[in-house]
């Protein structure tokens, strides 16, 4: 059984998003942190590795679509313990929306072959759409299992998972193959080890292009007609004064009633 983990390289969590008047956007980390593997994907990478450690997966293959620089995200996946990594890169993939990305990922998963589980993070912290996992499942014709907080059993051609929903959890069993999107409650991602980093830095990462995957017309069906920054929040601060804590609390409560907060 092979497991594929679909990752993305994103700006760091401390990077600031700047939207310019012409609608172009950029990310800049004030501390100079480089781009990272999408933080939500760390959970999916960890779960992929655990499927090998605990559920007999033979290979855990990390995939990402992007430019050459995205190799760094794949190296993080290798350093954490993925057995293989493949970069999906082609000029024809540039500007892809989530559906285009799903098309490429599905083609790559089919090309890897014998994949029973494809795992995604719940979303990418830059685009934050959370659509790619289900769209990839649709392209593959596999069952999508979203918001998975635990994989409890894998065997006999099926998988049982817990899904974390707004009002509770549900246990779901589905036939393999499946596409899973994970939430952070699923595990505690490991750090890439020193030896893992050493090994990953020497790994040669294969690059699959549009020709290798037999895909064309990736592009984007979504048109971003206008991108603009949110207006700055306005607010003011009022210090509640009083002679005692009780008096201050009473004033605060009165104020909260007055403002219809409570």
């Amino acid at each position, binding site marked *: 059984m092979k497991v594929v983990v679909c990752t993305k390289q994103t700006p760091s969590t401390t990077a600031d998003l700047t939207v310019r008047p012409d609608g172009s956007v950029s990310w800049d980390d004030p501390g*100079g*942190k*480089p781009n*990272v593997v999408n933080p939500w994907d760390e959970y999916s990478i960890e779960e992929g590795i655990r499927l090998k450690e605990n559920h007999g997966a033979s290979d855990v293959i990390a995939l990402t679509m992007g430019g050459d620089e995205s190799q*760094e995200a794949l*190296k*993080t996946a290798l*350093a954490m313990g993925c057995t293989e990594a493949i970069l999906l890169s082609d000029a024809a993939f540039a500007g892809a929306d989530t559906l285009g990305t799903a098309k490429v990922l599905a083609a790559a998963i089919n090309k890897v072959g014998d994949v029973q589980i494809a795992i995604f993070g719940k979303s990418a912290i830059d685009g934050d759409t959370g659509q790619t996992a289900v769209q990839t499942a649709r392209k593959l014709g596999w069952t999508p299992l979203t918001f998975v907080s635990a994989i409890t059993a894998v065997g006999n051609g099926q998988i049982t998972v817990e899904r974390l929903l707004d009002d509770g959890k549900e246990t779901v069993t589905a036939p393999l193959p499946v596409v899973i999107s994970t939430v952070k409650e699923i595990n505690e991602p490991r*750090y*890439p*080890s*020193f*030896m893992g*980093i*050493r090994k*990953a*830095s020497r790994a040669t990462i294969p690059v699959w292009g549009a020709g290798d995957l037999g895909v064309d017309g990736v592009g984007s069906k979504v048109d971003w007609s206008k991108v603009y920054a949110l207006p700055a929040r306005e607010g003011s601060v009022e210090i509640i004064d009083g002679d005692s804590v009780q008096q201050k609390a009473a004033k605060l409560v009165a104020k909260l009633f007055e403002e219809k907060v409570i």
Partner: protein
Amino acid sequence: MSSIYFNAEHEAFRQMVRKFVETEINPHVEEWEAAGIFPAHQLFKKMGNLGLLGLTYPEEYGGGGVDYWYQTILMEEIGKADAAGPPLGIAVQTDMATPALAENGSDTLKREYLAPAIAGDLVAAIAISEPGAGSDVAGIKTWARRDGGDYLINGSKMWITNGTQADFLCLLARTSDERGFRGMSLFVVPTQAAGFSVSRKLDKLGHRSSDTAILAFDDVRVPEANRIGPEGMGFILQMRQFQRERLAGTLMGVSGMEKMIRRTITYCRERETFGQPLIDNQYIHFRIAELLTEVEALRQLAYHCVRLYIAGEDVTKEVSMAKLKGGRLSREVADTCLQFHGGMGYVEEYPMARYFRDSRLMSVGGGADEIMLGIIAKYEDILPRRKKA
């Protein structure tokens, strides 16, 4: 950071260590500072699992087998932690208590103590200073007398970092009546040995999350096989071990100073006085620019030391210079940064006060500034000539 010293693999390693510090150390700093100790066994095991405790040591003992640039990164990144106590304990494990064992210990001794120290299963401490001899190492009085095939150790050791938690000590003791440095040997002493005790834990100005102790030895029996290197060579081996200790300390100091300055820049940008951010005062941004220049100069001296160390050169003079400058500069940086924080620098609610307290150790520990001056003067042959009798 683009650098002629570090490649993409180094940077990936740096990011990993940085994340480890931010996740495994910083969130616990307040609790550990209040407790006066950090859980070394717990933290070291996590580090051992990641291969962080023996980067430069041979792979056959579980080490990484890489050069000191990786250790440089480790020291720089742990040096940025929110308290200097845990980094000090880590550096004792990697750069102060184990280098002599790794270089001069027998294979058996290394398998018994170095390998578990690298794995994070054993906590190490370095036991050199005594109540009557600190930087003046040649004046130590702890004895290891031969008794059959063993040594019996008697005496006391002071200022021992990791002292209440250590599983073994790298200990310097006298083994003959020869005066000065000639009669000393280095030993690995397990702390579960009969006759060993922790006299007391010391209450310190800074590095409060690191346990520092006075240790007592009352007929502590250690086998001859626990001696590191030949008898009588202990002082020489320790002097070599000190170079790595001081280099590691300098590297941590540089990144610690940078952390203080960066935090101060952020504060001075946010804090407004007389209608403008503090940083807009020329005195303040000039002073910060000057301190950054000094820190960068020290970093380059430290990197020069790393290059010499990797090349196998004697780094004693250069490392002594780096540590001396580091100690003095860290006092200057901490004092200036605290001053620019005003009242916020003086309250324990804000980390600046802790950085200030922690910064004071560098001029005192691992050989005081005055000892560094003596070493440099000796290497430059400018010490007073001894009068012939």
